[in-house]
């Protein structure tokens, strides 16, 4: 394992598998226990440095670190010196001086975790940077798929929605490819980046053509304000062409599952009855997120790699 987890490409197949296996072992070790705490990272300090509001990601990392007995500092941009204009570098050096062993960073600027990694000695974990990547989300998605379907090799995953602005899509394309899954991106051409052809994924504009062949449908969040910038004409038209409703779910194979990184917009990108169906892994993904993040923190912070 590298010292930092900045993007899915930091993990080769062996590393990615090690993270998933470790998460599974942690899950198993903690299953049914009253004391859901391990002493592994006692005396280590993990800082959650969040420049964007993201309660669910922050508490997931916080719980992961606490279950491993690390000390956790939450440092959010609001109400701190950051909002008074302190630079990312100065903030990083301050946290370093306070003895942080790992910084979990969420930032609106793509590449901010890469910059941070140049300035600190500890590990940096990317908890979502701009429109770049969100590698632990991809790990928990892969973990969820493997858990539900029993494998990743050859699994056909349709990633549907605003790929252009999605860090979840970028991380998933890279990681799922590394782990042997076959990804198809489904979106209107306006919501696919120029250059998507170089990604290890198929591209389709037609959701109905892709669904019957998919083992996994991963729905991405689509922000309604995109239609103001003419990425698509209206929420209704988007929903009609790319929304996952009960009719479309009927086209899926019996074992196919439906995923969403949350928070979801019921109605537009995913119908309520689909989000709540047995195919949906949405709640499961949240729980798996804690185990996967425990595995990442353990593997990055546990000590020098052997």
């Amino acid at each position, binding site marked *: *394992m590298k010292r930092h987890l900045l993007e899915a490409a930091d993990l080769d197949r062996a590393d990615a598998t*090690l993270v998933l*296996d*470790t998460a599974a*072992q*942690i899950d*198993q*070790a903690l299953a049914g*226990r009253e*004391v859901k*705490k*391990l*002493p*592994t990272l006692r005396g280590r300090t993990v800082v959650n440095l969040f420049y964007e509001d993201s309660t669910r990601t922050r508490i997931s990392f916080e719980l992961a670190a606490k279950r*491993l007995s690390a000390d956790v500092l939450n440092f959010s941009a609001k109400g701190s010196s950051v909002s008074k204009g302190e630079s990312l570098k100065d903030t990083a050096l301050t946290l370093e001086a306070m003895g942080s062993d790992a910084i979990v960073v969420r930032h609106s600027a793509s590449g901010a975790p890469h910059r941070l990694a140049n300035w600190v000695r500890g590990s940096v974990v990317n908890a979502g940077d701009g429109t770049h990547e969100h590698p632990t989300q991809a790990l928990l998605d892969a973990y969820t798929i493997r858990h539900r379907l029993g494998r990743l090799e050859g699994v056909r995953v349709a990633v549907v929605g605003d790929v252009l602005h999605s860090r979840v899509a970028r991380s998933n394309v890279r990681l799922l490819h590394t782990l042997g899954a076959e990804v198809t991106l489904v979106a209107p051409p306006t919501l696919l980046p120029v250059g998507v052809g170089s990604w290890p994924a198929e591209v389709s504009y037609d959701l109905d053509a892709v669904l019957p062949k998919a083992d996994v449908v991963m729905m991405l969040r689509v922000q309604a304000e995109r239609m103001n910038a003419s990425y698509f004409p209206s929420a209704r038209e988007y929903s009609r062409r790319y929304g996952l409703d009960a009719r479309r779910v009927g086209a899926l194979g019996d074992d196919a599952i439906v995923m969403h990184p949350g928070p979801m917009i019921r109605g537009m990108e995913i119908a309520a009855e689909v989000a709540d169906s047995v195919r949906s892994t949405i709640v499961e993904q949240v729980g798996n997120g804690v185990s996967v993040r425990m595995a990442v923190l*353990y*593997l990055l912070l*546990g*000590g*020098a*790699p*052997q």
Partner: protein
Amino acid sequence: MARQPEPARSDPPSAVLSAADVTRVVDRMAHQLIEKCAGGGGAGDEAAGGLADLVLVGIPTRGAPLARRLAARVAAFSGSPVDVGTVDITLYRDDLRLRGVRALEETVLPEDGIDGRLVVLVDDVLYSGRSVRAALDALRDLGRPRAVQLAVLVDRGHRELPIRADYVGKNLPTARSQSVRVRLAETDGVDEVLVTEGEDR
């Protein structure tokens, strides 16, 4: 002080226990377990629940197959089945900083858990005692056994903690500079115990 020249390293490491020795030692330990737990040795507490009360919990890597072998031999000799499990101590170690991360192994306990039962931890080599301490910490988070005992194939001395084994296959006096390697058919393809020069682990 003049230093002795290093002895030539041409000799292959000597096996202090052969495959046959390992089998014999495990059998003897099984008998001791039966005697203490079910045999009415007069010890009182240990025999409280008999063999049904006993859980053999191996410490991976090699403690796990060892526990399974012991359980099989106890069952063969006594006629009653014995519960067996494993407890991975990786996340409880206090030397992560020194030795780095390693892959986790399984933790498996009997369906009805370990509360109120006699847990015998099983490991291949007892050395500093730190692995056993980590296993005790792990057990504490997993339940509340009536008592915990320790069985090891080899006790090589050099304890760093106040821990002793209740069942010892073989006491093997060693120097710190030596290393003891237990190899088992399940993990290494062959049963034997070797002593080699040079610390490793």
